[in-house]
């Protein structure tokens, strides 16, 4: 139900290009500070009131370099809100199968999902899956790309990646 509403809202948003904001823009999501370098120890150049619009320049660690009305500096990445293409989350009550970053939407095969599916999708569609037959040759090919543990280790060393031992966060 909620999902259908979102699909609909989404479809509407697509018809109104003005809704989609420039990619580089972000807003302070709380009162924060503009630092002269990407560090808590950096000097504070200016206070940043909640809701301030900034232009994003780059990222380093947990910091985002921004241009705030001509004033360049660094703001904590978590202190910025990016103009989202979807303003709210869906309920997402049901367990998904396998999708992760994003799954294919329209869990129901109804009028709503087909509406979404017709909006300029390139690449994978639900219909691609519905009509798929297994491809064991492609599976074999995929598996031929595997790396073994030792070569992955050498690969990491080449980039000076040093493993560290840390636990998962509590509640994980």
């Amino acid at each position: 139900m909620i999902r259908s509403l979102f699909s609909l809202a989404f479809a509407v948003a697509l018809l109104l290009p003005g809704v989609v904001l420039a990619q580089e823009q972000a807003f302070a999501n709380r009162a924060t500070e503009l630092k002269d370098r990407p560090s808590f120890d950096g000097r504070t150049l200016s206070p940043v009131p909640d809701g301030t619009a900034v232009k994003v320049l780059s990222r380093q660690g947990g910091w985002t370099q921004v241009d705030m009305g001509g004033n360049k500096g660094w703001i904590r990445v978590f202190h910025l809100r990016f103009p989202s293409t979807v303003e709210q989350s869906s309920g997402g009550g049901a367990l998904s199968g396998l999708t992760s970053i994003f799954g294919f939407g329209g869990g129901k095969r109804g009028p709503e999902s087909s509406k979404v599916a017709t909006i300029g999708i390139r690449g994978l569609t639900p219909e691609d899956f519905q009509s798929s037959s297994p491809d064991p040759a492609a599976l074999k090919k995929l598996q031929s790309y595997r790396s073994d543990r030792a070569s992955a280790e050498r690969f990491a060393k080449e980039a000076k990646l040093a493993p560290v031992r840390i636990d998962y966060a509590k509640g994980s």
Partner: protein
Amino acid sequence: MNRVFALAVLAAVAVALPVHAQLGNIGNILEFGKKAVEVGTKVQEATKEYSIDEEIALGEGITSGFLGATKLHPDERLQRYVNRVGRWLASQTEKPDLPWTFGVIDTETINAFAMPGGTVIVSHGLVKRLASESELAGVLAHEIAHVLRRHQISAIQSGAWGDVGKSVGAEIIAQKVGRNDVLGLKTQLANFGADLVRDGLFMKPLDRGLEYEADRIGVVIATRGGYDPYGLVAVLTMLATVKPEESGASITFSTHPSPADRIAELEKVVPATLEQYARQPQVDGRFRQAVGMK
């Protein structure tokens, strides 16, 4: 023993869900329904006993079905590169010896997938929007977390992902019970996996709790691998600003926790545990070369 449990799982799955005539063999469902009721209460333990081999077999079937719907990206150098990053990350986990397999599919859709047993797929549309190896690591580590925690297996076994798989499950029970064949289980599981793909496995919305969990675990795995812990946060930031009409991502945006919500969830755990690793490398030069960026 495991076989018995697996059987119990499949039977329980068949019984837990509404029977749909469109796919299942009604006769078989009725025939084995009674048996399924007897074992249905054991589904919890049975879930835990699902063996690694069975998980891998199911995952291969799902992957095979998945690859029937899309194509691998032709750039083999890129494929091997992604496998090295992924294998390095997987080596930092509690299951370093799964047959970890990573792949890039040739679609401009922005997406990533995890299959049971250790297969992780990312779309080329996603890869080309990333800025560094640490961002790729963030994505892969998130998927690896889904595999580690068997999120897919529990979704399939719980039956919460949909009604269609139930009847497919019933078919498997029938064949399994009829033959009582050890090797046949693998084959049937693989077939089951391929059927799951056709029947909508990839179209179901995510449970946001599992997504948040995979995010939390993912940032830790990437950090363990020596990467900048903020790679995944950067990816989510990018996703928040993608214009769907440009990205082919509009389907994917309609059902899931928003990137902003996921970033907010990560803020609760990241600073405390990972801030001290913020200066670990992002590795952008090698990444650009591998994905063909100048």
